[in-house]
């Protein structure tokens, strides 16, 4: 039975050597005694406790009494340290300001990113049962594997029956199309809104996700038929300050009244589960579809028993899968080869999941990394600044250090003094950083589409982070200068020998190179990201999104009057054409199986779009062969147009006239269009099937001629409200919609841009004060040179070239790295720009130009100085 070894080793490290034997002996004896008294486990705990006690008492200055007998924590001495620190701060005002500004900017950046990352990592972790909730994903394996966030309506329920380790199943289903609700308060106009965020939900959701009810009975709220639970915000929107419970709210698409049975508050943490309303699952009308095994329409979440692990359950899944799909008529081998089902922890959804039919746009762990690294770099650049300025400043403190040493200060003491000073500076910078942060918050919210408040920053944990950050920075930045300064030889330092020490010059040069390498990296990244964004915005998509307005088609009423509406709209000369379409480019196109008649082996999953004969002309999609749809009279007929990718995927040599079957309906290919980018440019163009079947349409597409957009939209609004008074009017411009697809890249671009500016700005702050210092060192030299006939430009070059060389080296070092990293980033896109040499050249020129500007300010000042003055002073 031995006491904890680690504790012993710590003790050995901290304890004064001449005391070690007795102390350790006592501790061991005590340990043996405690083992007898309270048992080994608790004795070990006590041992640690005792050792910590000793270490703490050594740490407060009782380590060794062999040499000095002065109490080093004497208040007089500490007051002196403060006084000297303050005087130096004031005396070298410019330098102090630059140091603090640099640090403050760095800290503000770092803080912002830490908060951002913290927020991203916090997603869905707040659910009380977060570690036991999983979402069922299914995957079809084939030529093009797809993984789905949504699955069959009965998958979860059957899985629970087959695998008892699953405790509860919760299903969500997003109503399609988006609901329109209305409520008419007595004696008022009806309040009608379109609601895009909501689900049909099982009543189990209440307990599994611990829905935060503020009103209503949580046990029954989602159990009754025709019940709806609202968020506080939505309840306020419809009912104002009236009591929402028990009120009826009308689903205008299904003409169904719903009773408000509960009001929930927002989750107090970020989550992917975003909704404004939940309708009880029993209300869901299409009961037949609830047993459809092949329809990925529901989000299935399962809550596992607390005793089982995820792998226990996953082991049993393949067997269950076979049973589940055999009931659908598939055979065992086929199922095992082509289907997979996964349990996805709910906490991984936000950052690690990019599946088909996600509930909403998710974050990306890549950008969490990118931001973290960028913030780290900014912090490092700011610290480097501090190091450089402090070592340069060191010579101003030489005499002080000499005097202190002569009076008996020890290196360790000086080290503490200077570390303390750096901590004070960092703390000051932190306060400034908070101010910067306060100013920056609105911009940050705009960039990241988040909603952070300054007040959220003021939490104990964030305060701790801030303090830790300040401590860390002051250590990283302060240690080297403190070590360097406290190492001065008293004799040379009192003589005032200012010859720069070569080791420190080397370190300083290395640090400048590092700073500018970071700047170059960031500038280059920014250029590439912006070019890629430009590319996205300007790339020919294969169709014309300009001057197209999409107007949403609501419900049966509008469908029935479709033709009348079209004709009425066309009466306006600015509207040149009206088409119908099921889904807008940029949105998710649904997928289905399609089989060429006579070639069953070539069946393939494809994206579907339902349209009419106007769609291709309105979007100016080019036909490759065949013809466009013609106005059809017979609805049992399904003319089909494929894109090139679909022709390739179905291996059709003679596409025109080919019959295709999907879900029992047969259609005939009448034409082939050129591939056009109906999805974002992140992915390559997928096979697409366009079916002439306007009954499936959800939007009118209005092609507008001329520049009277607002008037025309107004005209459309009044026409629709005249013809279909109960429907809402909502519209989008297609080009704006498509531009929003690249929001996340755009945000990264902005953030990188800001960081790049900060990085170079902070680096220049450092360069500025270093060049000032260098110029000051060489005042005499410059004076003599001028007396001997040196020109101003010659002197400027003399003073600048050392620094410039470093900047150029930094550019050369960072370029290949930046090139490689951005190449990796661009690889993630199906359509990306080529990086070109001029981008690197531009980066280099920019960096050098900024550096030259910074340095020349000081060197020109030095070069213009009157030599009489500089030589006279001693």
């Amino acid at each position, binding site marked *: 039975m031995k006491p904890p070894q680690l504790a012993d080793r710590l003790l050995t490290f901290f304890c004064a050597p001449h005391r070690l034997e007795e102390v350790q*002996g006592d501790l061991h004896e005590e340990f043996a*005694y405690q083992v007898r008294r309270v048992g080994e486990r608790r004795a070990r705990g006590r041992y640690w406790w005792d050792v910590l*006690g000793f270490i703490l008492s050594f740490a407060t200055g009782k380590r060794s009494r062999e040499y000095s007998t002065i109490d080093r924590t004497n208040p007089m001495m500490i007051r002196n340290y403060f006084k000297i620190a303050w005087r130096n701060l004031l005396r070298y005002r410019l330098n102090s300001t630059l140091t603090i500004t640099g640090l403050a900017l760095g800290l503000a950046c770092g803080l912002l990113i830490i908060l951002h990352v913290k927020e991203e990592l916090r997603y869905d972790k707040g659910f009380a049962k977060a570690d036991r909730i999983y979402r069922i994903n299914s995957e079809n394996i084939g030529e093009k594997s797809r993984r789905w966030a949504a699955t069959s309506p009965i998958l979860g329920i059957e899985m629970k029956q087959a695998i008892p380790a699953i405790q509860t199943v919760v299903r969500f289903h997003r109503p399609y199309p988006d609901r329109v609700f209305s409520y008419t308060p007595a004696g008022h106009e009806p309040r009608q809104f379109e609601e895009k965020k909501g689900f049909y939900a099982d009543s189990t959701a209440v307990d599994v996700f611990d829905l935060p009810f503020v009103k209503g009975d949580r046990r029954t709220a989602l159990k009754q038929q025709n019940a709806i639970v609202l968020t506080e915000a939505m309840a306020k929107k419809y009912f104002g300050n009236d009591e929402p419970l028990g009120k009826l709210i009308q689903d205008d698409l299904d003409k169904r009244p719903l009773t408000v049975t509960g009001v929930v508050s927002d989750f107090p943490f970020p989550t992917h589960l975003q909704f404004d309303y939940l309708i009880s699952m029993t209300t869901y009308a299409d009961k037949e579809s609830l047993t459809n095994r092949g329809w990925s329409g529901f989000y299935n979440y399962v809550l596992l028993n607390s005793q089982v692990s995820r792998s226990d359950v996953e082991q049993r899944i393949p067997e269950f899968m076979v049973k589940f799909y055999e009931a659908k008529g598939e055979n065992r081998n086929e199922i095992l080869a082509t289907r997979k089902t996964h349990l996805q922890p709910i906490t991984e959804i936000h950052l690690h999941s990019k599946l088909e039919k996600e509930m909403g746009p998710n974050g990306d762990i890549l950008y969490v990394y990118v931001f973290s690294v960028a913030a780290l770099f900014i912090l490092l650049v700011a610290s480097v600044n501090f190091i450089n300025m402090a070592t340069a400043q060191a010579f101003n403190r030489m005499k002080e250090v000499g005097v202190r040493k002569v009076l008996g200060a020890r290196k360790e003491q000086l080290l503490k003094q200077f570390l303390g000073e750096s901590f004070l500076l960092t703390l000051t910078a932190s306060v400034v950083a908070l101010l910067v942060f306060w100013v920056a918050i609105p911009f940050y919210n705009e960039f990241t589409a988040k909603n952070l408040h300054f007040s959220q920053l003021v939490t104990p944990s964030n305060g701790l982070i801030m303090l830790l950050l300040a401590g860390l920075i002051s250590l990283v930045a302060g240690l080297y200068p403190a070590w360097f300064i406290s190492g001065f030889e008293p004799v040379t330092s009192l003589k005032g020998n200012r010859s720069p020490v070569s080791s420190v010059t080397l370190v300083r040069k290395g640090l400048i190179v590092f700073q500018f390498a970071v700047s170059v990296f960031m500038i280059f990244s920014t250029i590439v990201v912006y070019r890629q964004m430009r590319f996205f915005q300007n790339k020919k998509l294969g169709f014309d999104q300009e001057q197209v307005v999409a107007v949403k088609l609501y419900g049966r009423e509008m469908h029935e009057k479709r033709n009348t509406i079209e004709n009425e709209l066309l009466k306006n000369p600015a509207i040149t054409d009206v088409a119908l379409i099921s889904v807008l480019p940029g949105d998710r196109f649904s997928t289905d199986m399609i089989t060429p008649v006579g070639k069953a082996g070539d069946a393939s999953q494809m994206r579907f779009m339902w349209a009419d004969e106007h769609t291709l002309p309105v979007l100016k999609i080019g036909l490759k062969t065949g013809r466009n749809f013609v106005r059809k009279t017979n609805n049992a007929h399904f003319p089909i147009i494929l894109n090139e990718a679909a022709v390739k995927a179905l291996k059709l040599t003679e596409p025109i006239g080919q019959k295709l079957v999907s879900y029992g309906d047969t259609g005939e290919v009448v034409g082939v269009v050129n591939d056009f980018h109906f999805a974002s440019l992140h992915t390559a163009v997928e096979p697409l099937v366009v079916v002439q079947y306007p009954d499936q349409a959800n939007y009118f597409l209005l092609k507008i001629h001329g520049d009277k957009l607002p008037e025309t939209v107004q005209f459309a609004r009044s026409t629709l409200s005249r013809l279909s008074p109960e429907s809402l009017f909502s519209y989008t411009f297609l080009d704006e919609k498509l531009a929003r697809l690249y929001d996340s890249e755009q945000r990264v671009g902005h953030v990188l841009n800001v960081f790049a500016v900060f990085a170079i700005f902070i680096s220049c702050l450092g360069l500025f004060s270093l060049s000032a210092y260098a110029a000051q060192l060489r005042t005499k030299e410059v004076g003599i040179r001028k007396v001997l006939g040196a020109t101003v430009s010659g002197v400027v070059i003399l003073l600048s070239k050392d620094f410039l060389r470093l900047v150029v080296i930094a550019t050369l070092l960072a370029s290949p790295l930046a090139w490689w990293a951005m190449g990796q980033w661009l690889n993630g896109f199906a359509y990306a720009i080529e990086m070109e040499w001029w981008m690197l050249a531009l980066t280099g020129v920019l960096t050098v130009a900024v550096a030259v500007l910074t340095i020349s300010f000081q060197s020109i000042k030095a070069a213009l100085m009157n030599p009489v003055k500089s030589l006279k002073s001693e």
Partner: protein
Amino acid sequence: MKRSYLGEFEEIVLLTVAVMEGGAYGVAITHEISEQTSRSVRLNQVHAALERLEDKGMLKSEMGEPTAERGGRRKRLFTVTAYGRRTLQEIQDVRATLWTRLLNPFKPATSL
């Protein structure tokens, strides 16, 4: 001569060392104090106090015998110096004087 100031804890440690007559070292003193005063005492506090008392010249120490429990390490055995004894005596005298000057000595409470 004006004697050095002694803290309450230091006084107890010093007294305990005196009481233990030669057998006084870190752990033993700690145990003795916690038994006699029934307060929880930490080893490092006792060590610190012993060190301070030795600095003040009230204790002297020498290394003792190693034991197996201590992993073959020796104990440091403390004894009270004459100065230490005198200090203790002075403290005792001061208190005794004050007690005798107490007009109404505390009596155990008999009724409420």
